[in-house]
């Protein structure tokens, strides 16, 4: 990638430097000090292949979200899939034929390493549609504001992932009876560029790791993983905060205790065990904070886009998706009067467990005017999305408040 701007030693070619200087309007004085193979962001392919209306929250590291109306497809296309990176994408050249996955840790009977071709040959391949949602999706709704990317509602996708079951690999390796957790390790680079620092290394309890839908995946929507989404290999764990689905995966550790990798501690991907007053400070100890597991019930209106103006007398065909972490959605309701009355929507079953479900509704409006159209999903445990912003927490996680759009009948 980008070899046209580097010479054979990995330093930027003079012509590329001239281009850089032209763009910056000054000489690149310290060009010879740039790390070999460093790719300046101007040449970075971070947004390559992404829809032009994706919203960039950060470009270092890349964090990009999808406006709800672009999520209308049942299977999210790559160009409309959100990006959440904690670190920088690997800069080394990736050769998938040389890439390996190592399974190790206190609770394996042996350490074992597989090439991707071994995984494909040795284990049965499965394809699932899986919802990946950032634990911080909706963070911008919390007051007072909490640290982190201020996601609106678009840090979610449901794409088709292909790979092998982690349980089949772990069965081949052999687990000890004391296995309680897995932790992943990827090849992303720490924002400080210190290669000794781990960017993020999270995981799930062994029970979740052994579910049929937990995949070691090499393909997304039928094609090789894009670099931004973890090429050539990643973990995919549907229904839980997407941060457990490690990208650029090279190692999985099977632990005899809760995994203690980077971003498993403090209030990272954790919420208070006891709810707190908005803004309340709380010591970041495991006694005070619990790890987020299944994501809460949620829905999106993906058609029409907010701001629709409709002629009086016409009905409105509304549609979207609903999902509920480890469980399914039982019912979706819509309201045009701020929740005073609700109408039941038509709801489809999921393609497979942990996929989102499509819903639709035909709405009519009593008279001209400004309306907010609200959608509310209820899961199979009877738990509903709240209309107001849910429990404030220091990390700004798990805002599953109802989505709504503005509609004018004219």
């Amino acid at each position, binding site marked *: 990638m980008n070899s046209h701007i580097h010479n054979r030693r990995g330093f930027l070619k003079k012509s590329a430097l001239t281009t850089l200087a032209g763009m910056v309007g000054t000489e690149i004085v310290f060009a010879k000090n740039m790390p070999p193979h460093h790719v300046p962001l*101007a040449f970075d392919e971070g947004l390559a292949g992404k829809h032009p209306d994706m919203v960039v929250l950060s470009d270092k590291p890349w964090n990009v979200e999808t406006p709800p109306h672009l999520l209308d497809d049942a299977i999210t296309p790559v160009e409309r899939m959100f990006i959440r990176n904690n670190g920088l994408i690997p800069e080394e050249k990736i050769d998938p034929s040389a890439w390996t996955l190592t399974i190790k840790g206190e609770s394996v009977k042996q350490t074992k390493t597989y090439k991707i071709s071994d995984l494909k040959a040795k284990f049965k391949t499965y394809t699932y549609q899986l919802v990946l949602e950032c634990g911080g999706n909706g963070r911008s709704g919390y007051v007072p504001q909490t640290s982190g990317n201020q996601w609106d509602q678009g840090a979610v996708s449901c794409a088709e992932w292909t790979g092998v079951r982690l349980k089949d690999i772990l069965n081949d390796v052999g687990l000890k009876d004391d296995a309680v957790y897995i932790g992943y390790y990827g090849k992303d680079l720490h924002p400080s560029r210190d290669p000794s620092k781990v960017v993020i290394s999270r995981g799930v309890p062994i029970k979740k790791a052994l579910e049929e839908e937990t995949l070691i995946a090499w393909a997304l929507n039928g094609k090789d993983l894009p670099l931004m989404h973890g090429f050539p290999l990643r973990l995919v764990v549907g229904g839980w905060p997407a941060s457990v689905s490690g990208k650029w995966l090279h190692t999985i550790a099977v632990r005899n205790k809760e995994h203690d990798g980077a971003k498993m501690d403090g209030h990272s991907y954790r919420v208070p065990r006891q709810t707190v007053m908005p803004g309340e400070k709380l010591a970041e100890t495991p006694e005070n904070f619990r790890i987020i597991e299944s994501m809460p019930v949620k829905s999106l209106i993906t058609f029409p886009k907010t701001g629709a103006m409709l002629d009086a007398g016409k009905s409105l065909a509304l549609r979207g998706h609903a999902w509920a972490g480890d469980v399914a959605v039982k019912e979706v309701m819509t309201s045009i009067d701020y929740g005073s009355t609700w109408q039941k929507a038509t709801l489809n079953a999921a393609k497979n467990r942990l996929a989102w479900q499509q819903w639709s509704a035909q709405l009519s409006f009593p008279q001209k005017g400004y309306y907010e159209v609200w959608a509310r999903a209820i899961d199979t445990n009877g738990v509903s999305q709240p209309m107001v912003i849910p429990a404030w927490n220091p990390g700004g996680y798990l805002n599953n408040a109802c989505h709504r759009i503005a509609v004018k009948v004219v």
Partner: protein
Amino acid sequence: MKTNIVFFCAAVVAFCFAAIRREPSAHPSATLTAVADSIDKETGLALDPNFMIVKAQCTSCHSPKLILQHRFTRDEWLSKIRWMQRNHKLWDLGESEKTVLDYLAKHYAPSQSAYSRREALRNVKWYKLEK
């Protein structure tokens, strides 16, 4: 320290391009507006006499958008600096720390708006629905 300077320079160059590539813009749902009269085109940060020091200290490791997304009190900004020093190898800012905090507290402080469980929908771009 020398390594830091090298990375800093590379990073300054890098983020210039990031700015060229896409105009930094506030998040659409942000209810917050900067108080500055003028904005630096490359970074989107407020221009004032302390701007260059902030640009040098803060955008070497991360996007200026990480600042632009947030509104914190001076103490909260200080706690972010300490957090980056603990976890992300941020150096000791020395005498610039006060300058950086003055700047952040001036331009990126919390707004005074009342707490709302759901605010009115804002910035709706109306269009005629044809289907």
